[in-house]
């Protein structure tokens, strides 16, 4: 059987592996081309490997930008079983570049869920006991409406035509999902970093629907430094000529270089100085001496380049602009006359605030500001600063003290709510 190979044009190579194989069979050509991870991620935006709920234009998302967004698609995953009283549901809010695959294999990278250390049978967030829900945020790129989704009005990707998204918009959309699932009140809302902002917004916007809240490694507002780092990332994306003012999908390009640089810069902020030094120091990458070139001589350079290039395979560049912006705009106190305590006035929610002492992105002082406000609001609040050298990323890692805190807090809250213990297997 005769087969022919053709090399693809550079633009197409973003979406398909470099060879197209033509096979002639029964007087017809069959073309086999293998999509790249990037192409898969583009598909993921519209038709995700997830549960999906669609809200028609008659039930739009009322956005802070003053726009009604509809139709709206929300992609989500669930783990465990909702009990008959519907009292054991935990909503997990993901961070900047996270997604709904908290404890299931990522459909593009094939890697385990990003919080499998925390969530699963017998884990601190025990799926034998709790019903865990995780959805992709509005503005994301894993199946919930975002800039890479197809705009039904034009048939093209939204790109920058999507209104700017806020943390509150993300939470409103999650509330629509929770309504759709028929759950009146959540047992707990848990999240780190940008996920923690959503937790705080949930507690402020829907206090009666949140029994327990766990904001982790987060802040009630973005600091000037936080905004500055995000702006560097966005400028890196927008400086890439392949960004095409946000219309790169129409042009068949992907601003991979800009997005990779954005990820590299951001990744530094997720690690502590000590951890970087311990892990990489000044060690060379597969060589004994400098090459007197701009090669990745140092292991840290190689590591960051890997972080950058692997990120662009799974994440949409415009989506990165939207989610970073959402964090920058977040200032919970501002919605309540400048008083963070007013945001939590009269709350019955039980809070457990967690920070990590080597996290310089959302430092302990930011968590303490939340705790002070909750104290001033006479809320029930616990606060733990976990000692670790692993920086902001610690909330994603295996940190035993952090797990003990989470397990203890949830166990006690579950007792108070009358949730049955997990059946012993």
């Amino acid at each position, binding site marked *: 059987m005769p087969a022919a190979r053709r090399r693809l044009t550079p633009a197409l190579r973003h979406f398909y592996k470099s060879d197209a194989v033509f096979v002639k069979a029964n007087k017809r050509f069959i073309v086999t081309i293998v999509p790249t991870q990037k192409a898969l991620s583009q598909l993921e935006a519209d038709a995700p490997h997830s549960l999906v709920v669609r809200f028609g234009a008659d039930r739009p998302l009322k956005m802070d930008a003053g726009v009604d967004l509809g139709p709206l698609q929300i992609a989500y995953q669930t783990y465990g079983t909702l009990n008959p009283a519907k009292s054991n549901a935990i909503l997990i809010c993901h961070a900047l570049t996270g997604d709904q695959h908290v404890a299931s294999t990522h459909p593009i990278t094939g890697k385990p869920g990003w919080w499998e250390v925390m969530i699963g049978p017998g884990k601190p967030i025990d799926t034998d006991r709790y019903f865990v829900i995780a959805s992709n945020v509005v503005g994301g790129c894993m199946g919930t409406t975002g800039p890479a989704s197809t705009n039904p009005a034009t048939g093209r990707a939204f790109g920058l035509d999507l209104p700017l998204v806020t943390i509150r918009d993300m939470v409103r959309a999650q509330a629509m999902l929770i309504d759709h699932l028929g759950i009146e009140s959540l047992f707990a809302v848990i999240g780190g970093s940008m996920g923690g902002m959503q937790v705080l917004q949930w507690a402020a916007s829907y206090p009666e629907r949140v029994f327990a809240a766990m904001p982790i490694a987060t802040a009630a507002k973005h600091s000037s430094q936080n905004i500055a780092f995000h702006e560097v990332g966005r400028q890196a994306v927008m400086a890439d000529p392949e960004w095409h003012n946000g219309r790169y999908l129409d042009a068949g390009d992907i601003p991979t270089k800009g997005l990779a640089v954005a990820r590299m810069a951001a990744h530094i902020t997720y690690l502590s100085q000590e951890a970087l030094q311990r892990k990489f120091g000044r060690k060379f990458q597969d060589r004994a001496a400098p090459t007197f070139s701009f090669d990745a001589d140092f292991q840290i350079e190689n590591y960051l380049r890997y972080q950058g290039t692997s990120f662009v395979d799974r994440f949409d560049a415009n989506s990165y602009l939207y989610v970073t912006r959402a964090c920058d705009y977040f200032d919970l106190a501002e919605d309540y006359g400048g008083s963070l305590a007013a945001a939590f006035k009269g709350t019955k929610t039980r809070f457990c605030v967690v920070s990590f002492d080597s996290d310089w992105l959302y430092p302990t002082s930011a968590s303490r500001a939340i705790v002070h406000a909750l*104290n001033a609001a006479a809320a029930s609040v*616990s606060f733990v*600063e976990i000692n670790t050298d692993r920086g902001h990323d610690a909330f994603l890692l295996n940190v035993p003290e952090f797990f003990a805190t989470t397990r203890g807090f949830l166990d006690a809250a579950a007792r108070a709510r009358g949730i049955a213990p997990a059946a012993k297997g």
Partner: protein
Amino acid sequence: MLSQTARIDLLVVADMVAPKSRVLDVGCGDGTLLRLLAEERGVDARGIELSQSGVNDCVAKGLSVIQGDADTDLADYPDDAFDYVILSQTLQATRRPRAVLEHMLRIGRHAIVSFPNFGHWRIRAQIALAGRMPVTKSLSASWYETPNIHFCTIRDFIGLVDEIGAKTERSIALDHQGRPLRVGAPWWVLNLIGDQAVFELSRRN
């Protein structure tokens, strides 16, 4: 269960707390007293504890406890947030005992303070006869490693209460096992034979 194993001095403190009230325990350790109050008196129990392990123990018991420092973090609580603010065996370890006491009486309507009595005759004897800083069963650390930097006697404490204009509602001296001394003796006697003391204070309006 708990009340049988709890330290007797904690029971004395717990006895001063009205049921169903709001309580903040400053330096709550592993939460033994808070749990006692929550389970046996239906108290809304909150705590502050410096050590991470202590906070973790408390959170695991379902108590609302904040990792923090009595010297710096009491300032963040609003006025009249609690019915009782308790400082159990911690006053002598604070950097500014007077400020801590004043904050306690600002945050809570009542303050309950228990502390080791440095005026006990055994301690006086160690300084007077041996010429050395006292080391006793309940105060077992040497001078160079003790966290207790502001010791006082019962008489000193009464002086501080007067100075900050607070009112003593109740006061009890305890023996070395934490049992109340049931003798109708004047304070200068209790200052000699009391191993520790518990005071309930309120604001003088």
